[in-house]
């Protein structure tokens, strides 16, 4: 024990950096269909291997296989494909609008579309998501109008949030979408609190928390797991592991544990890992966890394994910290292409119909964009009023704010 060899600090590093060849050989990927599907009331200890494997449904040939397959009809899958295509087209247009100076900031979902789009399908009206900035699919699937999303992004006169929020920090209670916070992770424990409230009121609604891989390091993540574990809150806690947190690879937040899902094991919370680029797998796992929560068996932690193909945000350029071609070699492929191929294999879709759908979707998005821009963009056209800046701090404006509004001359 009197070992005098000097200590040294260990700082984890990604396998490759710019200039190197992308390498994901260290990413262990389960075969599609290989992971068992336990009962929703299974003892967490008995299913701890689910925190280390990856639940996958679509195999290389585009077939849906194994116990997690078979929960969605062809019509539902076709609709799901369109949701993801819509989100992708929306992203492309808004990213461009940002470059054109029509707004200050944008964040896209490229590569992660399946996660929010498939998950949302497992929910019921009244359930509440506590999303991060990378789950706009929840809104699209819920039927929130694209025009309203864009008005928020443009901070224009029709912005439902009156210009107060950064672009993409949407809020729509009606669509089960909690107001996004610019502060990472804070909403995770709030989701647990919301779920506890539903249980306190003997309601039937559940809450869904969302967090990024990097953000699991924040304190709110711990608070959420502690409270969810103690009160068996009816909540599904999602971790979207897209491999990166701005420039920081997931190993910095994950540290010595094999997976993020493993974090749940220390709390007796069932933890599942799922192929986040597999629409069918995400849906099946969501459905399992949602049923668990709804039947009062308590929380579930889900790690969605995916990859952030685009930049972190419109302010970021990933080529400074990872090989440019890294996304091409990501072993779980592209969620849109994989679902498309599956539907083609099933004989209900074709390359041609896909092209046509792409055109239709783009058309829809562009139409919405034109409509939104009629109400203004950040620096031109209709704007939310300066008065709006002073409203809504409190339900009723207190005297000091009234004085300040007067000083501002509005």
């Amino acid at each position, binding site marked *: 024990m009197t070992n005098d060899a000097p200590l040294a600090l260990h700082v984890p590093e990604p396998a490759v950096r710019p200039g190197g060849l992308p390498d994901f050989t260290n990413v262990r990927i389960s075969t599609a269909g290989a992971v068992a599907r336990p009962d929703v009331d299974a003892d967490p200890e008995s299913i701890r291997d689910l925190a280390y494997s990856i639940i996958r449904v679509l195999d290389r040939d585009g077939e849906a296989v194994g116990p997690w397959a078979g929960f969605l009809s062809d019509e539902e899958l076709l609709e799901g494909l369109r949701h993801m295509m819509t989100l992708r087209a929306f992203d492309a247009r808004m990213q461009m609008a940002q470059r054109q100076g029509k707004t200050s900031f944008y964040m896209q979902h490229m590569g992660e579309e399946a996660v929010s789009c498939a998950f949302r399908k497992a929910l019921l009206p009244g359930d*509440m998501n*506590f999303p991060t900035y990378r789950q706009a699919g929840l809104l699209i699937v819920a039927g929130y109008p694209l025009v309203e999303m864009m008005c928020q992004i443009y901070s224009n006169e029709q912005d*439902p*949030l*009156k210009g*107060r*929020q950064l672009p993409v*920090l949407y*809020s*729509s*209670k009606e669509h089960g979408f*909690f*107001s996004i*916070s610019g*502060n990472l992770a*804070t*909403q995770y*424990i*709030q*989701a*647990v*609190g*919301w*779920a*506890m*409230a*539903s*249980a*306190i*009121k003997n309601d039937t609604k559940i*809450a869904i928390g969302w967090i990024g891989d990097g953000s699991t390091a924040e*304190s*709110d993540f*711990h*608070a*959420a797991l*502690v*409270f969810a574990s*103690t009160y068996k809150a009816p909540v599904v806690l999602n971790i979207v592991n897209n491999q990166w947190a701005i420039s920081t690879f997931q190993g910095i937040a994950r540290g010595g544990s094999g997976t993020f899902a493993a974090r749940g094991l220390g709390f007796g919370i069932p933890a599942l890992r799922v192929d986040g680029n597999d629409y069918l797998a995400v849906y099946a796992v969501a459905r399992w966890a949602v049923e668990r929560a709804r039947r009062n068996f308590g929380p579930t932690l889900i790690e969605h394994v995916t990859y952030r193909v685009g930049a972190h945000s419109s302010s970021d350029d990933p080529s400074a910290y990872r090989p440019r071609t890294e996304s091409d070699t990501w072993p779980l492929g592209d969620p849109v292409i994989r679902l498309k191929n599956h539907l083609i294999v099933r004989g209900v879709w074709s390359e041609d119909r896909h092209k046509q759908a792409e055109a239709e979707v783009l058309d829809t998005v562009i139409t919405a964009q034109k409509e939104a821009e009629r109400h203004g963009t950040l620096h031109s056209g209709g704007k939310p009023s300066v008065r709006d800046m002073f409203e*809504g*701090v*409190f*339900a009723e404006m*207190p*005297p*000091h704010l009234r004085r300040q509004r007067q000083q501002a001359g509005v």
Partner: protein
Amino acid sequence: MPRKTMIDAIRDAMDVMMGRDDTVVVFGEDVGYFGGVFRATQGLQAKYGKSRCFDTPISELGIVGAAVGMAAYGLRPCVEIQFADYIYPAYDQIVSEAARLRYRSNGQFTCPLVVRMPTGGGIFGGQTHSQSPEALFTHVSGLKTVVPSNPSDAKGLLIAAIEDPDPVIFLEPKRLYNGPFDGHHERPVTPWSKHELGEVPDGHYTVPLGKAAIRRQGAAVTVLAYGTMVYVAEAAAAETRVDAEIIDLRTLLPLDLEAIVASVRKTGRCMIVHEATLTSGFGAELSALVQEACFYHLEAPITRVAGWDTPYPHAQEWDYFPGPARVGRALLETIEP
């Protein structure tokens, strides 16, 4: 009318509200079965069940964060932080979340949340059972901050806070729990049962947020105080025979500036007392406001008496605490600078 201690009055407020409104829930560390280390929630779990009043893990972040989620759902959580000194782990949830939720969601989600916490020193609690962090809340847009000074107000203000549609920070001067402590620590404190402000009406009533109370009419100087300092100021005025007008602010934000300005314009002088450290304390804001509104009425500099700019020490507690002697000296200086 029944006389109650301040703790009993606070418990009474929660009891009344839990009885009237089943969206009111109460939780915190040791708050459930045991009824809180100051016994403010004693009996509430037995009466309203474990779903309405319960113990939590020791996570102030978790307590407030979960409460924000519950409030967004539609409940009215009234949570306890065991000592105000332990609020900092929850500070992000208060500042970034509770305070801004209504604003950033344009009213889709709101946060009718009350965060109760014992504040102030005088119980030999050392650095971590004595703090008065009110200024850390008054700087945050979207929060209301309340500091009651007696049982009657405490109940009415707490009911108003629970009914308020927005988050309210409710700071309870723990040295006042048993009686109107005036800083004379060498003497036993008069119990609330012997004080008229110990008279607490039964049932539901409110003391509106944002209204100050004049505790002593006077012509020579206006004293702005809240919490324990109200009684210290009273003692100092009595002992120095200065004809002070003592205003108990009760709510720091929104502030009853009207009452303050009216008084200072009348007396021409102003002294501010609080227990929190001086620099950037709430007294600074009060001084700035009074100066802005009453500049031409002021006959002498506005003075501030406050805790020193050090952590709250254990052994030197009574040297730190701005007691009647120190307040009295400042009062005389404000009269004759």
